């Protein structure tokens, strides 16, 4: 039998599997979770390096001359040093990078789980979602560090950041760090797979 029916871009709850689709999806997610954890652990060292280097680059866009250095410690912590605080180099923050990007575990499991979708398409969509995730994590590391600069360095913060800037970095960090970080896997999954849970559209008359 031709498998072209699996290649439609509009998954429809038919073939007797519609009512079971969420059950199959949930089963697949749980089965894929250990593999997703393993994949996350495997790519974490490279991913951490990308976040540290990319975050430093983005921070430098707002500094003239460049004042921030972000170092990778033990492959999993970002050590933030600022050159113009307290008259010289000063360590200002340490971030646990896993805390930023552990949502990738759920992302991988959700994107590889949808039943009835060809594997090539699942991986392609996961790749796109991972790129969006990387952009998000880079934004998150910038907001984490800038919120330290704006709110946690006492007089230096008050001197360099006005009330609008402090609210911007503080609220932005709060929104990115909790709701958007935790909601991102569902947000991205729904971008590609919402039709798996939408009601089937009636077939047009011939």
């Amino acid at each position, binding site marked *: 039998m031709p498998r072209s029916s699996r290649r439609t871009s*509009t998954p429809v709850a038919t073939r007797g599997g519609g009512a079971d689709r969420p059950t199959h999806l949930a089963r697949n997610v749980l089965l894929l979770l250990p593999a997703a954890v393993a994949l996350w652990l495997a790519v974490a060292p490279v991913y951490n390096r990308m976040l540290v280097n990319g975050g430093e680059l983005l921070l430098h866009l707002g500094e003239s001359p460049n004042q921030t250095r972000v170092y990778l410690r033990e492959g999993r912590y970002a050590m933030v040093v600022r050159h113009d605080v307290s008259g010289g180099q000063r360590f200002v923050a340490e971030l646990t990078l896993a805390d930023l990007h552990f949502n990738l575990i759920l992302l991988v499991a959700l994107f590889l789980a949808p039943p009835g979708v060809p594997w090539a398409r699942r991986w392609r969509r996961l790749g796109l979602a991972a790129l969006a995730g990387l952009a998000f994590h880079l934004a998150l590391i910038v907001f984490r560090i800038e919120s330290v600069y704006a709110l946690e360095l006492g007089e230096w913060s008050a001197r360099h950041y006005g009330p609008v800037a402090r609210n911007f970095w503080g609220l932005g960090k709060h929104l990115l760090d909790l709701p958007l970080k935790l909601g991102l*896997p569902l947000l991205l999954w729904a971008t590609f797979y919402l039709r798996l*849970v939408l009601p089937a559209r009636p077939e047009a008359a011939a």
Partner: protein
Amino acid sequence: MSESSPTTVAGWWRRPEARFLLAFTLLLAGGFAFLAWNPINDHLVEPFTAGVARASAALLNFLGQGVRQEGSMLRNDRFAVNVLNGCNGVETLVIFWSAVLAFPTATWRARVAGLLLGSLAIQAINLVRVAALFLTGAYLPRFFDSSHTVVWQTIVVLCGVLLWIFWASRFGPRRRPAGGP
């Protein structure tokens, strides 16, 4: 053939996915901003968190842990933990509520039922999380940090996502009369 081509930006914005994404993001951000507002945090979130701590203490004492609750703090002779934002299940609740309210095709009765039942389920899972983390801290302390940051956050959010998917698939669609246009 779909009436709006997915290959054009204008076509994509007319699709239900676009409406869901926009509504979900706005509800998520707005919901968290609302809960972060000091009067709401002080008079709603903090008492709720203390209630979560109370229920967790009851569960742990049912398991024979001899836990005392002091506000949002749980302690016994082996371990102490402070139940804060991030461990009260509120984030997953807001994600779940935002996803239910943003879903493009559902009756309000289905939404209300989903919100109530889903909230109970998420809080039950969160209760297990708090108790499990306390036991991890008491008996396997070297696993506490990773359990707290990665493992249980992932599990609770995953449960919220799966609950929404089940609700959307089974209760979300409006019932259409048979043979209608």
